[in-house]
């Protein structure tokens, strides 16, 4: 079975998917990435899908799951390089990839991760978001 390589660049893990993945290969990547996030302590994951000419619901779900797993392990995931035709097809398929951050290319993805990290250091953003959500929930609960 093919395996998708994972490269470590500084504080980021970079995955560039260049093959038409069997479902098992996608699931293996999910496991491999979780392991590498833990063993390297990286805080960012970039998944380059510019080599993919389609993203179906299985691969879409795998990307969303990778993002969720990484977040639980204290790493942010950015999916980069989606082709325009793939974006059009994904939306028509009904898959809008909620919870996944995207950027147009690897460079912009790295900038996005750097910004997220800087925000986190400044101690705002994430906690503010949670506070806001709590406030909204509380407001909804009011009669």
């Amino acid at each position, binding site marked *: 079975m093919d395996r998708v390589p994972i490269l470590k660049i500084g504080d980021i893990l970079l995955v560039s998917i260049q093959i*038409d*993945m*069997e*479902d*098992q290969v996608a699931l293996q990547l999910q496991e491999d990435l979780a392991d590498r996030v833990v063993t390297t302590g990286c805080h960012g994951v970039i998944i380059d899908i510019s080599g993919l*000419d*389609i*993203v*179906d*619901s*299985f691969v*879409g*779900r795998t990307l969303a799951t990778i993002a969720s797993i990484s977040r639980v392990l204290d790493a942010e995931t950015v999916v980069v390089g989606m*082709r*325009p*035709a*793939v974006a*059009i*097809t994904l939306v*028509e*398929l*009904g*898959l809008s990839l909620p919870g996944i951050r995207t950027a147009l290319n690897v460079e912009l993805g790295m900038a996005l991760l750097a910004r997220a990290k800087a925000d986190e250091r400044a101690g705002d953003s994430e906690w503010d978001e949670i506070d806001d959500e709590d406030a909204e929930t509380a407001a909804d609960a009011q009669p």
Partner: protein
Amino acid sequence: MSDPVERIAVSTDQDVVRVRQLVRTIAVSAKLSLVDQTKLVTAASELARNTLVYGGGGTVEVTRVDNGRRQGIRIVFADQGPGIADLDLALTDGYTTGGGLGLGLSGARRLVDEFDIETAVGQGTSITVTKWCR
């Protein structure tokens, strides 16, 4: 003159990849636009996976078609699996019995121009999709 039918038996993950590659090749030769190629290959991937996962394997047949005005591609996904008991429910976004997202069947239908499904409980399912060149 009738166009040759390309046929793939689907019994493993690897066969789903072969279906995608075959549909891609024929979509390119039929001069479908890039977006339509992408939609058709994506729909084929969803339906071939359904044939494997829910139908227990089956066959996929791809043919070039011509209705006199336009050229297109027709794909038939057939299995002898358990069939679909409630078709309306199976075609609803988000409904799944297999732990997926429930977008395969309903999403694939949106990605093609024509979508026919024949199914009977205990006898299997046959889905025919067609995409026409614009």
